[in-house]
């Protein structure tokens, strides 16, 4: 994050007048810049131009099909615009059931994934760091074994009572979600220097549960959130396994329901995208703490943690361990730790800000 601000801080000046002689606006000394720097600034101007061009082209590729779909779904009778396709959609047989089933599967799969993966990731990091390589390998197996292969294997071996239940899908979705959950959580744990946090809170007398609930999970909020988002997106969009297992989740239902009116089908497709988007938006809104005052600082510290905390954190957490002896509150160790790194992050940003103006 901070890595990018530095060159772009310079980019601001270059963009305003790419070829201009900088002298007057140059920060710091006020004398003319060396030639290499001037050239670098011109290059930044070009980078900005190309960035804009790339984003516009990519935006067009991704938005045009959406626009085409929207137009088509609104042109219900071929004459004028109408929302008839959308109102017809919710009346279709099975719409509610399919959405509800998808939501249930998403909840179950996400719950199991988190319950399974959070302790595993923490355990591997804290107790068995050597196993991480193996874990990297094992968690990429679900990518090696495509869903279409997995489902024929599952249907081959699963007992009848399990095959009769749609929740077999949820159990398999957990497997599909493992690669994403592992990577998201692994990155998160690596960023917070978990060992120091654990040592600090243990020396303050926290049990394993307190440690998890009051120290580790709050720090892993962003990682847990992104694991959740990835799992939910996966479940809400999964078609292969659901259709081959013949259960009408929402993506499978879209194919199965009465296709006599293509405008309604188009509306259903857009709805599925919007539905996923809304659910993900809700999750990230619930998962994010309110942005105000001190809380914001902590959150930034947790987010920008990797740069700021790694070298500094160790020393400061040790210091806060000493200070915590007064209150003997494990959460305090965490707060002190985050506070200090927040200050560091803030100071670093201010430095960059100063260089920019």
């Amino acid at each position, binding site marked *: 994050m901070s890595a990018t601000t530095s060159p772009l801080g310079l980019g601001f000046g270059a963009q305003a007048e790419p070829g201009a002689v900088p002298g007057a606006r140059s920060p710091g000394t006020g004398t003319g810049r060396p030639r290499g720097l001037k050239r670098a600034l011109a290059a930044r101007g070009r980078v900005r131009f190309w960035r804009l061009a*790339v*984003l516009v082209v990519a935006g067009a590729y*991704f938005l045009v099909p959406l626009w085409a779909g929207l137009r088509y779904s609104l042109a219900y009778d071929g004459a004028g615009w109408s929302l008839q396709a959308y109102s017809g959609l919710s009346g279709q047989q099975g719409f509610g059931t399919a959405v509800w089933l998808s939501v249930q599967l998403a909840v179950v799969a996400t719950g199991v994934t988190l319950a399974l993966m959070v302790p595993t990731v923490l355990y591997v990091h804290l107790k068995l760091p050597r196993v991480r390589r193996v874990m990297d390998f094992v968690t990429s197996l679900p990518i090696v074994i495509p869903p279409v*292969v997995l489902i024929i294997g599952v249907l081959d071996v699963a007992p009848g009572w399990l095959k009769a239940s749609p929740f077999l899908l949820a159990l398999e979705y957990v*497997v599909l979600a493992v690669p994403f959950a592992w990577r998201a959580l692994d990155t998160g744990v690596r960023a917070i220097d978990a060992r120091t946090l654990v040592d600090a809170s243990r020396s303050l007398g926290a049990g394993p549960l307190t440690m998890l609930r009051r120290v580790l999970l709050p720090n892993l909020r962003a990682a847990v959130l992104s694991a959740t988002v990835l799992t939910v997106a996966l479940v809400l969009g999964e*078609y292969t396994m659901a259709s081959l297992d013949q259960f009408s989740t929402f993506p499978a239902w879209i194919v199965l329901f009465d296709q006599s009116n293509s405008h309604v089908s188009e509306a*259903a497709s857009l709805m599925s995208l919007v539905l996923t988007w809304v659910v993900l938006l809700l999750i990230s809104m619930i998962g994010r703490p309110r942005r105000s005052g001190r809380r914001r600082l902590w959150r930034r510290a947790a987010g920008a943690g990797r740069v700021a905390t790694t070298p500094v954190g160790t020393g400061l957490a040790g210091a806060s361990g000493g200070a915590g002896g007064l209150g003997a509150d494990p959460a305090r160790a965490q707060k002190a730790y985050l506070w200090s790194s927040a200050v560091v992050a803030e100071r670093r940003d201010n430095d960059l800000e100063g260089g920019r103006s």
Partner: protein
Amino acid sequence: MPFWAWMLLFLGVPAGAVGVAAFEGSSGGFTLYNLRAATTGVYLQGFENTLELALITSVVPAICGAVLAYAVHTSPRAGFRRAIVTAAGVLANFGGVPLAFLFIASVGAETSLVTNWLNAIGLNLYGTGFTLYSFWGVALVYMYWQVPLMVLVVLPAFEALRPSWQEAASGLGARSWHYWRYVGIPVLMPSLLASTLLLFGWAMAAYATAQALTAGTLALTPLQIGSFLNGNVLAGQQNVGYALAFGLVVIVAVVMVGYALLQRRASRWLR
């Protein structure tokens, strides 16, 4: 640990079952017949098409995705970057029939929106023999989720490019071309290749989108496996589907081993 039990039960056992069934005759007993059937005729054609499709839809989106990821990475607005990452997460999982319908509305017929636009500027898309329901049509649609996927996987790799290297390079008189030629690309290369392999494996495994677009008329291995499950099968060939699945796993496994080796090399710069 519960994790291992879970993976064994819901991943290891089914995968093992596929491996066993691939070498089992329709009335039991060991045989290589399935494997032979799976590598001849229309099934061989399926493997060829799938490999070709995966090659095209991994290399092209890898390049586009890397450029896009760099554009996003250099953006000064953190909110914008976060929005793009979220959007990429949704789009990378967006496939199957909904995606097929969006593209049908865009270029599905001679009077669709984009086809009309192209006609208006004098390009007759359908005059070139293109249809959305052919190999190239499927490839076009695959890129809709391959590019966001590439953005997602390659974005962390750009973190490895320290701005100080660029500053050092330009301090030594390097132009930006020199910087990319001698510093940027070599550092990123393992990550880029690894991500491309990941996309390749992903494209090999994709089922929903091709199924929705072509309804099985294009010979692709995942679709053929699916049709075995739906019971479209000749007498005596019930287990050929498992052999196809086995073959698919072997190909993807080879690709993923390459991915793992490259990742190890790439991680050198990420410390």
